[in-house]
C-alpha cells in the first residue's frame, strides 16, 4: 500500500526527537484520525532553519511525512519553509494512498505552526488546507 520511499522514511525516520532549547515548537492533532505530531525548530540569524526534529504518534504515513518534512525544511529560510504545503509533502514522498493523504496535513501544519510559534504569531487557521487532499493519487 505504501511505496518504497514512504517505507524508507517510515523504517528509517530522519530527525526524530526534540531540538534542545528550540526557537519554535508546533504541535497539531489530526481531526480525521486523532494522531498527534510535534515539530521543534532551531532558527539561526539568517532566519534559516538550522535544526529541526519531530515526534509523532501516528500511522505509517504520519511518521513518513514527519520525517520527510524535516528534510524538506532543514536549511531553508523560514519564509520558504512556511510555503511547504501538504501536497508538496505527499509529492516528495512520490505519493500516498488516497485514504492517507490527510496524514500529510499533519506534517505541513506542524511545521507552519512551529514557524509561527517562533515568529510569535497567533495561530488561527491551522486547518486551512484540510481537504484539498482528495483527488491526487
Amino acid at each position: 500500500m505504501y511505496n518504497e520511499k514512504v517505507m524508507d522514511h517510515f523504517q528509517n525516520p530522519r530527525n526524530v526527537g526534540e531540538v534542545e532549547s528550540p526557537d519554535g515548537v508546533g504541535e497539531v492533532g489530526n481531526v480525521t484520525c486523532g494522531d498527534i505530531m510535534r515539530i521543534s525548530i532551531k532558527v539561526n540569524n539568517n532566519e534559516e532553519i538550522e535544526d529541526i526534529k519531530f515526534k509523532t504518534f501516528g500511522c505509517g504515513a504520519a511518521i513518513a511525512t514527519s520525517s520527510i518534512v524535516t528534510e524538506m525544511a532543514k536549511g531553508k529560510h523560514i519564509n520558504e519553509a512556511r510555503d511547504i504545503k501538504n501536497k508538496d509533502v505527499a509529492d516528495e514522498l512520490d505519493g500516498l494512498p488516497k485514504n492517507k493523504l490527510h496524514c500529510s496535513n499533519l506534517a505541513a501544519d506542524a511545521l507552519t505552526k512551529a514557524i509561527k510559534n517562533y515568529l510569535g504569531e497567533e495561530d488561527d487557521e491551522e486547518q486551512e488546507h484540510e481537504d484539498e487532499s482528495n483527488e491526487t493519487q
Partner: protein
Amino acid sequence: MNKIYLDHGATTPMREEVFETMKPYLQDNFGNPSSIHSFGREVRKAVDEAREQVANAINAQPEEIIFTSGGTESDNLAIQGVIEKIGDKGNHIITTQIEHHAVLDTCEAMEEKGYKVTYLPVDKYGLVNPKDLQEAINEDTVLITIMHGNNEVGTIQPIKELAEIAKDNDVYFHTDAVQTVGNIPIDVQDLGIDMLTLSAHKFYGPKGIGALYIKKGTKLQRVVHGGAQERKIRPGTENVPGIVGLGKAIELATEELDTKGKHIQKLRDKLIEGLSKVEDSRLNGHPERRLPNNVNMSFEYIEGESLLLNLDMKGIAASSGSACTSGSLDPSHVLMAMGLSHQTAHGSLRLTLGRDNTEEEIDYVIEAVPEIVNRLRDMSSIWKGKEANYSN
C-alpha cells in the same frame, strides 16, 4: 526469513485436505447441480454431502443449512430476510454495539428504512448483560442478533442465556458465529438459537463461501432473487467447489477441536503473559470467556498501523482491529464500546493464532513486540516527554 502468520481472525490458510477435496470439482466434476443429466447429478450429490457435513458439525438438519457467499451475506440474509418477511409485525431489532460491520451496517440500513434498532452496550470486557437484553425487548421486537465470539477482542457472549430470553419473549434469535465455528464446539440445539452465520475461510476452508443455519419453521424471505437453488432461499448457480470445501473444512475442524484447540489456547496464554510484561500495556477482552486463539493488547502512546508495519518487517503478520474495517480511520468501535479512550484504542494489536503456529514463533513475537513498542514510543509525541510541549 520465515514468516509468522498471526492473523487467523482475518482469514486462514486452506488445508491441503480441503484443497484435495475441492480439486475434482475444479476439474472434471464441473456440472451444474441443477442439471438432470449425469454431470449434474454427480455434483448434486457432492453438494448434498457437504450440507450434511455442515449440519453434523453444528447439530442441525441438512435442510436447515443454506449456502451463501460468506459470513457477510449470511448475516444480511438473516437480518434483512426476517425483517422483509415479518417486519410488519413489529419494527424493532436488538443487536449490540460490538457486532461485525456485516451486522452493524445491515441494522443501520434497516434503520434507514424506518425500523428501530437498539444497540446494547457491553461492559469493559466486552460482555453483554442479559438483563439489558431483557429490558430492551418490547412488543415490537421481532429480531435479536448478537454475535457469538467477537472478532476483535475475542469475548464470547453467553448466547444460550441470551437466546433463552429471546425464546421466552417469542423473538427470533440470530448469532454471527463466524469467529467461533471451527474454534469452539457449537450445538445449535443446545444454544437454542434460530439462525447462525458461519464462513469457511475462518476455519481453513475456501474464501467466498459460507452458510446460514435456519431452524426449521423460521420465517424468512430471500434477499437475492432468481432461480430455485438452495430451496429458493439463495438462488444462483452453486459454488460447488466452495461448498465441497466448506463441508470438508468444517468436518476436519470439528474433529480436532479438542486437540488443536488446547495447543492453540496454550500458545495464546503464553503470548498474553509475555506481552503483558510490556509497560503500559493491557489485555482487551475478557480474560477467560474469550476465543482460544485471540490475543488483543493495547500499548499506550503508540499507534496500531505503525506497529503492524514494523511487525510486518520482522515477518510477523498481525492486525489491529478487524481487517474488514481497515477501510476506516476511526478507532475500533468495539474497543470504544468497551470504554477505551480514543488514544488507547488506536494503539491496539490483535494477534490471532492458528493450528500451525509453534511455541518458537510465540517466543520470537514476545521478544519482537517490546522492541518495536519501545522504538515507536521513542518517536511518539505523547510518550513521556510531554513536558516539552510548548504549544497551547
